[in-house]
């Protein structure tokens, strides 16, 4: 009997790890640096979705936020349906390369009937999740070079009415809060005064809470940023003003909007919350936004999608079922069904052929009958005609005879009359 080497495996997972202290410098404190270096080489990816009515200032805010001109054109107000327009840009700052995708809604809030306005947005977000899921489920996959297009942050632009949220806003945000990190902002904040703004913010937040809308909360688990994040969480939603034009204030050129009654400076924290938005969105929490999207929103989508397709983790006996088995089972099912359908189709085809055949036979027989009928008719007519011809011939011959007889008689008469005349003359 061949000696087969059996390996004995000492229990691993349940053994608690020993904590050790090092007696010298080992050097793995450079691990975070190695990780960061690798990520820098690969580059980063960030996708922002901007939802807001036409003309509310989405494109201007993006331009201001990233300090570039994204070359957007104004949209018309007469779009029949909400559409999404996505554009990708490559930005670089010092040695960090960022692939930024900005998705804007076109025609949001312009329709007469806004019931389906949120649907294209939800569909877009789901499409991005779907394509990532497809890539992840592939056999030969390349997740590391995959361009991640999932939406990481959603800036929802609230109109500066000063009263409360519109019902369209509530409905849309409710549909999106489990799919994407929502950061509400109050657009065109230079139309609201400070006191009105304060009341407006409180009203908005209370409405969101009472309607159960879960907006993105800045994370509090890291001590270095917990304090700043808590403060910012209390200042949501940010009231922003966007501008790419420069105005000279004092001896500096700053981004601002110039009015006859004054200049609203974009980067002045007493004028608007733009700087706070930039801080929170980019400088402090960009990585957390990406992580939330991947670990919370994408996982939820994946779970729902797979359960929908019929995969389960445990079967009725609650034994773990591997994806492979379920997939195999489903495939067999599918193949069987295909076979059944094929059979059905074949049978239907055969039946149809039979029917057609019998139909054709029937009409053939009918034609045959008619043909024979016609033939008989013709024969009859022919016989009748023959009969007539015979009569006519008979007539003709009798007429001929009578003519001949009459001529003979006439000739006889003539000769006998001639003789009589001669006799008289003598």
């Amino acid at each position, binding site marked *: 009997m061949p000696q*087969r*080497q*059996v*390996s*004995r*495996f000492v*229990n691993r*997972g*349940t*053994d608690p*790890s*020993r904590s*050790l202290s*090092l007696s010298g*410098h*080992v*050097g*793995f*404190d*450079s691990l*975070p640096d*190695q990780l*960061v270096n*690798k*990520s*820098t080489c690969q580059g*980063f990816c960030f996708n922002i979705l901007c939802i807001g009515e036409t003309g509310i200032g989405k494109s201007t805010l993006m331009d201001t936020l*990233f*300090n*570039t*001109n994204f070359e957007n054109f104004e949209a018309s107000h007469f779009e029949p349906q909400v559409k999404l327009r996505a554009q990708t*840009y*490559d*930005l*670089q*700052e010092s*040695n*960090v*390369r960022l692939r930024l995708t900005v998705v804007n809604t076109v025609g949001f809030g312009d329709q007469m009937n806004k019931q389906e306005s949120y649907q294209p947005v939800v569909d877009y977000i789901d499409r991005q999740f779907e394509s990532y899921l497809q890539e992840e489920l592939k*056999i030969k996959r390349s997740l*590391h070079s995959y361009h991640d297009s999932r939406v990481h942050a959603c800036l929802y632009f609230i109109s500066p009415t000063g009263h409360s949220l519109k019902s369209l806003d509530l409905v849309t945000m409710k549909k999106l809060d489990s799919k994407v990190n929502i950061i509400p902002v109050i657009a065109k904040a230079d139309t609201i005064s400070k006191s009105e703004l304060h009341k407006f913010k409180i009203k908005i937040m209370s409405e969101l809470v009472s309607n159960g809308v879960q907006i993105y909360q800045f994370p509090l688990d*890291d001590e270095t940023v917990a304090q700043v994040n808590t403060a910012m969480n209390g200042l949501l939603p940010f009231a922003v003003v966007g501008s790419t034009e420069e105005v000279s204030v004092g001896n*500096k*050129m700053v981004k601002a909007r110039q009015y006859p009654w004054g200049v609203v400076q974009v980067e002045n924290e007493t004028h608007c919350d733009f700087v706070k938005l*930039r*801080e929170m969105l*980019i400088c402090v*929490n*960009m990585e*957390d936004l990406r*992580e939330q999207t991947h*670990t919370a929103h994408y996982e939820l989508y*994946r779970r729902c999608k797979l*359960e929908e397709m019929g995969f389960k*983790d445990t079967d009725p006996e609650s*034994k*773990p079922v*591997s994806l492979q*088995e379920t997939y*195999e089972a489903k495939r067999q099912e599918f193949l069987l069904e295909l076979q059944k359908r094929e059979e059905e189709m074949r049978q239907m085809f055969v039946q149809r052929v039979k029917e057609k055949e019998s139909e054709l036979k029937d009409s053939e027989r009918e034609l045959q009958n008619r043909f024979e009928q016609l033939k008989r008719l013709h024969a009859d007519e022919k016989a009748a005609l023959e009969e007539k011809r015979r009569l006519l011939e008979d007539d003709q011959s009798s007429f001929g005879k009578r003519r001949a007889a009459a001529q003979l008689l006439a000739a006889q008469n003539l000769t006998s009359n001639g003789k009589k005349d001669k006799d008289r003359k003598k």
Partner: protein
Amino acid sequence: MAWHTVFPLLPPVLLAMCWPRPSPPSLMMGERSHAGDFSYVGIDAILEQMRRKAMKQGFELNIMVVGQSGLGKSTLMNTLFKSKVSRKSAQPNPEEKIPQTIEIKSISHDIEEKGVRMKLAVIDTPGFGDQINNENCWQPIMKFINDQYEAYLQEEINIDRKKRIPDSRVHCCIYFIPPTGHCLRPLDVEFMRRLSKVVNIVPVIAKADTLTLEERDDFKQTIREELRANGIDVYPQKEFDEDAEDRLINDKIREMIPFAVVGSDQEYQVNGKKILGRKTKWGTIEVENIAHCEFAYLRDLLIRTHMQNIKDITGSIHYEMYRVRRLNESNAGPGLAPGQAPTLVSAHTNGQTKVNGGPPNGMAAQCEVLTHEM
């Protein structure tokens, strides 16, 4: 600030409107500036955010040491991580007997340095190469490595999966070559040939203090030639070099492998300094002195510079290859029933992993062998 007028608008430049194109053409570098600056957006703050998150999460590393007994594996591990990480230190057993079969023992440690926490698992293989008949001695090891890949795969394809999948995959396998001075033995060649396809192998010459420098160089040359002749691709693999810079660095490393190492966890006084070394009658061998042995190079490679790269290659190349094979296998035919595939069903339930002990039956055994062979 006067310079604002000199440089009117230096934004992080809009490079190209692309849709998905792989590498962007870079035109101009934005100013490295600070908050309050006109053109600063803050995109580079993401590096800091990433670092913070990584430090909070901690790192994981799994190293396997393979070699005959008495080659100094445990000592080397202790020297590398400057603490008692080896199996012998963890489970002191005064009567250490050579085991009858190959065992695979894994011990986990939590270590921390300057705020960076790491979970290190050292996987030891006592009994390797010690039997009289060493045929198929790589099988248990290969099985173990594949089992780790399998566990990761199972967790990954779960519907309800953990936020962070615990990574028990073997990142690096250090193979100890005895310092004969001649050439590689058939066991070495066979093992490295099979395992270099599933895991990163780093060969080292153990107990290098028995070789003089010339002997060492000759031995290394021979080993390198033999590795090349047998088509064995050890870490750093040539085909995974990313760019010219990488290739340059890795070529230098490839010129030096296998590293000739000496391990020691005892400190001696040399020239007034306390250093790790081995004291003998004819002198003291300093472990971290590159004139004496190449331990420092090994440590730098494994820990200080290439650790992340090792983990990446394991995750994105070896694991992906395993996954492709495994997913294709189950599509291939109805023959692969759940019991035969190395699925650790028990792992789901109680966290303990036990290999189905003993040869089940001839058919299953053959199937197992087939799935683990290349």
